[in-house]
């Protein structure tokens, strides 16, 4: 584990393909089943399928669950708080991207528009 790796590691890009069942998710993330059910109810994670047994989650859900766990542990957020944080974070990401767009534009436009 600790040795410096000379050869490069190849990972897999995790996709939004829905393939994990609730039990898969429990074992991958080390969370109890009812916790996952609560997270779904709060809209923190979204499965495909209606009934719990039909639920299928994507690999990106694993990343979201890890983030949810960190926020809960470090900041004492409850499920509703996590859902809100997720929403706000994605809004911030979106705004930052758009801001970057405009800042880039300004930068480009100034020399000609100032004339």
């Amino acid at each position, binding site marked *: 584990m600790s040795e410096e790796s000379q050869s490069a590691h190849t*990972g897999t*890009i995790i996709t939004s393909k829905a393939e994990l069942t609730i039990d898969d998710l429990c074992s991958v993330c080390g969370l109890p089943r009812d916790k996952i059910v609560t997270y779904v109810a709060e809209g923190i994670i979204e499965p495909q399928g209606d009934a719990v047994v039909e639920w299928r989650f994507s690999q990106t859900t694993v*990343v979201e669950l890890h983030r949810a766990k*960190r926020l809960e542990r470090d900041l004492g957020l409850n499920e509703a708080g996590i859902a809100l944080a997720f929403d706000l974070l994605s809004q911030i990401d979106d705004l930052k991207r758009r801001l970057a767009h405009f800042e880039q534009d300004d930068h480009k436009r100034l020399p000609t528009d100032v004339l």
Partner: protein
Amino acid sequence: MQYKDYYAALGIKKDITQEEVKRAYRKLARKFHPDLNKDKDAEERFKEIGEANEVLSDPEKRAAYDQLGAGYQPGQDFQPPPDWDEGFEYSGGRQDEAYSEFFEHLFRRSRQADHAQGRQFHASGQDHHARVLIDLEDAFSGATRAIQLKMPKVTGDGHVITEQRTLNVNIPKGVQPGQHIRLKGQGGPGHGEGRSGDLYLEVEFAPHRLYRIEGKDIYLDLPVAPWEAALGAKVTSPTPLGAVGITIPANSAQGRRLRLKGRGIPGKTPGDFYAVLRISLPPARDEKSKKAYQEMAQELSFNPRAQLGV
């Protein structure tokens, strides 16, 4: 070993109540949490805050720390007196986090005892999360990046130390901003016979001089002359895959998006490339260009403010 001033880390005075410790911690934790704050030093700062909180939020640990720390300055070389923690019992706290040598020495005795007694337990390692910054070009050709990771590691005698680790990672072709790359078994080590955790690398793109990236699509502001936009033209545009000819339809307005299918980030269904037209005005500095503008003003009955009702 350096003495750590935990009160300073949380920005609080020594005579503060437990309730106030919690409040100070939460406030700073929200500010520097790596999931909420993407600044480079946020993670380091968050760790310091976490360590300070781990000690000060626990009345037993806090009492021991207070008793011991009187007279020490932050950063000062520190040697705990023998049997300094007699009569204190510690339990709980986060066992997966690597804190400073100071913390490990003072507050992680119990783990050593566990180890000495040969107690066995098995658990999977933690999944870890890190970010990697790549260039747009890397998404087209693939690349290898050396990633510096700080990982907590349990030593033979049961201490947890932070270990700097360099991992060479192949960035696969076709990766998009915000996507995660999973490296199996490269997270935290398992305990006993438990498997190692995975490492999740969040991919970020460095800002590009020319292009913007949205998902798998790429945008370029393409400057065009007024007559190119008005009359139509064939112009050359850069794309990450090399220069291509783009046909500007006649009567194109500012901001018109021209799509080149499949010239975005590669993949099973590749993204698209969009050239967004930006009409660039030639300056009227000399007589010739002034005359050309004057002719346009005379010949065209054009009111750019017609929409404003004036």
